[in-house]
């Protein structure tokens, strides 16, 4: 069991899936030997070949509330701080009217990932922005047991989205000044079936 686990996790990149499965069933010792040899070879391998890799899809937003390095370390604190402000105190925006730093809704809106079929990937998908890192770090989060994991509606009208699929001219011919009715037409109530 230990050997299998070892091979699975540490030397993933050195075996094709087919070879690995076959070996595991028939020749565990031989595979262990191969694994050891392969292990020595990693001395010469580039760093990117070591261990499992993580792929975080870039979002094309303008900027996050803090630089990426600080967000990586501080996002739990931001979320916890602002959830108290919002839920318990009723504060919905910053003093300048901007979105709260720790608004999970806004996090989801910007950091939503679409798959090949142009549908948002949900929290059970490894490509989901939060999952991609948290799975790697083996830190389980329960935010999305309650919170919505993908944007509501088309997601094209949110602040930092790339707006690439939106044809504004078709929606409001010749103008960007939106009335209440325009907003109603542009952002109809879209339910999860559409995602």
């Amino acid at each position, binding site marked *: 069991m230990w050997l299998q686990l070892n091979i699975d996790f540490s030397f993933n990149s050195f075996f094709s899936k087919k070879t690995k499965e076959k070996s595991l069933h028939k020749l565990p010792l031989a595979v262990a030997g191969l694994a050891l040899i392969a292990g020595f070879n990693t001395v010469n391998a580039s760093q990117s070949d070591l261990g499992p890799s993580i792929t975080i899809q870039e979002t094309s937003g303008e900027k996050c509330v803090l630089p990426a390095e600080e967000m990586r370390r501080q996002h739990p604190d931001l979320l916890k701080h602002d959830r108290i402000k919002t839920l318990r105190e*009723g504060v*919905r925006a910053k*003093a*300048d009217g901007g979105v709260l730093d720790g608004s999970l809704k806004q996090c989801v809106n910007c950091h939503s990932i679409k798959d090949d079929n142009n549908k948002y990937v949900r929290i059970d998908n490894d490509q989901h922005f939060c999952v991609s890192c948290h799975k790697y770090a083996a830190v389980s989060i329960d935010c999305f*047991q*309650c919170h919505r994991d993908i944007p509501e509606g088309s997601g094209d009208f949110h*602040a930092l989205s790339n707006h690439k699929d939106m044809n504004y001219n078709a929606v409001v011919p010749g103008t960007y000044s939106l009335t209440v009715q325009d*907003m109603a037409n542009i952002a109809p109530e879209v339910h999860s079936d559409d995602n």
Partner: protein
Amino acid sequence: MTINIENEKQQDAAEVESSRRNFIFGTVAAAGLTVAPGVMLYQTANARSLSEKASSKVRWGMLVDTTKQVDWNKCVDACNKEHGLDNEKNSRDDQKTQYIRVVDVKNKGTGHSMSLPVMCQHCEQAPCVDVCPTGASMKRPDGIVLVDRHRCIGCRYCMMACPYKARSFVHEVLSDQTENTPRGKGCVESCNMCVNRIDNGQEPACVEASNGAIVFGDLNDPESSIAKLLKERGGKQIRADLKLNPGVHYQGI
């Protein structure tokens, strides 16, 4: 004496709509959020901006006129839609979440029957807040009683304490929640008077769907339509003998 609520509402709307619209879209444009359009009807005497804390100057309340011939199930539907309720697949009917229940009552002596919507009554002295062991069941300064799911451990003590049977417990894993109402397995929940809508200057969903039979507003503001109606025509609280001072009042019961 009768008061035409429709006309009064339209006047209110006309007075506040333009400034309110500017307020909403000015703020929201800066915030970069998509907000569904809604007509703002309630008084703005104690209005606060999105960045201010809820204040005890305001006491939000509702006045339900049960004498109006209204299909209360429309309010329930609007509530379900707003909060993404009714998406439990594996729960029994009596386990499923209800924020509003339509209660039919009949006087056996006279044979007179009526129905009324019963939601969280948003008590001033809320028993659910008193008994909560974690501080999850809470009352905002502006009188809205709600559950902080970050702290709720699902003990359901508040459900036992509530004399109005207003709270529900989520028994199964949920997905596809709405953006504004996070809800999930293991937490107690109840009507939160559409707190997200109120903070954004909109009326609760059931009020909007009630065709004027439910009036929403600030009980502390003597100029608000709800305070005027209560002053002129009075209103009853359910189980007023418990002295919990609910924020939801009824006429015609």
